[in-house]
């Protein structure tokens, strides 16, 4: 029961994030086996799938962390060219790794990434971002002394620090307690502002479904099913998910 969605075109005619026939092979193993994707500003796609389906590899390809074996990825109509770096300003990535330095404080980590992005006015931006994720009082704490939930919130602040148009989230709820998950959910909900495009990969059906405007199920490197999140509720989707993953749909 494969379903294809035609994304609405933006005024410029270029989708915010587009992948055309992307394939990623690791030697004899094909992690991503030809995925086409087109997302407009404001769309929130959640990709579900079992372990080993190639979800993280897909996100790595969309982020420009991995070079596709075949196919290409475009952001706002600009094809990702590994020789150029400016397109990276449009992408923010939150992984299950925080990309943080445990020996630096929260504000030092943000200052470092801010400087890499060439951001001005860090003295104003850093306290704002820390307050946004509820870490205003931990600005001077070493990251190594923060709880997992706090680190994940700081990682989210880092991913959003340069105000990217395209946000890629890899299992952001992993290991979070309910309180930390609620804070994360609140910040992710704010991302649905009509301007940003979000792709999230997760195992968590309820969290992933709650924010999505589109959902896809990835199995063995391919989108085995995709559709609008409005078409289904969580129980329906859970049944569908098991059918698709087990090859019954």
């Amino acid at each position, binding site marked *: 029961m494969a379903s294809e969605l035609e994304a609405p075109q933006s005024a410029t005619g270029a989708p915010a994030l587009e992948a055309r026939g992307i394939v990623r092979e690791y030697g004899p193993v094909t992690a991503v086996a030809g995925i086409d994707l087109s997302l407009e500003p404001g769309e929130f796609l959640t990709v579900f799938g079992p372990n080993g389906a190639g979800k993280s590899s897909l996100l*790595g390809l969309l*982020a*420009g*962390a*991995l*070079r596709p074996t075949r196919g290409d990825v475009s952001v706002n109509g600009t094809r990702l060219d*590994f020789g150029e*770096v*400016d397109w*990276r*300003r449009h*992408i923010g*990535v939150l*992984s299950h*790794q*925080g*990309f*943080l*330095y*445990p*020996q*630096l404080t929260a504000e*030092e980590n943000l200052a*470092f*990434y801010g*400087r*890499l*992005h*060439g951001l001005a006015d860090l003295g104003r931006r850093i306290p704002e971002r820390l307050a946004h994720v509820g870490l205003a009082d931990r600005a001077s704490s070493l*990251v190594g002394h923060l709880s997992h939930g706090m*680190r994940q919130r700081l990682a989210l602040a*880092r991913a959003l620090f340069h105000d990217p148009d395209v946000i890629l989230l890899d299992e952001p709820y992993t290991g979070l307690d309910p309180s930390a998950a609620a804070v994360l959910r609140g910040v992710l909900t704010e991302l649905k502002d009509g301007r940003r495009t979000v792709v999230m990969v997760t195992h968590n059906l309820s969290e992933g479904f709650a924010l999505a405007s589109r959902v896809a199920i990835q199995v063995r490197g391919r989108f085995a099913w995709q559709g609008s999140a409005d078409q289904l509720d969580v129980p329906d989707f859970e049944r569908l998910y098991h059918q698709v993953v087990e090859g019954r749909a």
Partner: protein
Amino acid sequence: MSTYLGQIRAIVWKDLLLELRTRERVVAMGAFAVLAAVLFHYSIDRTAVRPQDIAAGLIWMTIVFGGLLGVGRTFHLESEDGALKGVLLSPAPKDAVFLGKTISNFVLLYAVSFLVVGVFMLFFGMELGTSPAMLALALALGSLGFVALGTLFAAMSSATRMGETLLPILLFPLLVPMVIAGAGATGRLLAGRPVAEVAGNIRMLAAFALMAVAAGAVLFRFVVED
């Protein structure tokens, strides 16, 4: 251009701040330098060989082996929470990342090289010579060439399972010209010979450093891209 320089500065600032907090590389390199000098001091038969005649070679071998301890771990702290991936996903050009890491490694190794020379002067009873500025220049150029190649190969070896074993095997053969020129210049300068005698060695060290930095800046992206 100012953004590019700011990105290099950010890498240098972060690396030196991390080292200030952990002190793991400087302490390892410094301790190795002192212990190596002590061992060399007691292993030489002074009735058969004059320590001054072999000190320059031992100084550079100590710098190379000690430097390997520091440079080899330059990507260790980056890998703890995937931080290097975060840096590579930023808009900082790969050559800016390389130059930033090379500069921070240079600062650490250059400081250690003075410690090495000081410790050998103490244990081997040597004088500083007539041109300490030229000696400082030789140490600077040698250290720069070493850390440039070391940073490139450390990035390569950090991605492999046997990285720490692989690094010296890859790196040492390429360091031969630097060690020859560095030991030659250092030996003559510590012996108080005229500066004109080491001009060729200094030019060799400068050319080596220039080529190592240029090669590293160009090749680094191919090493770190997946």
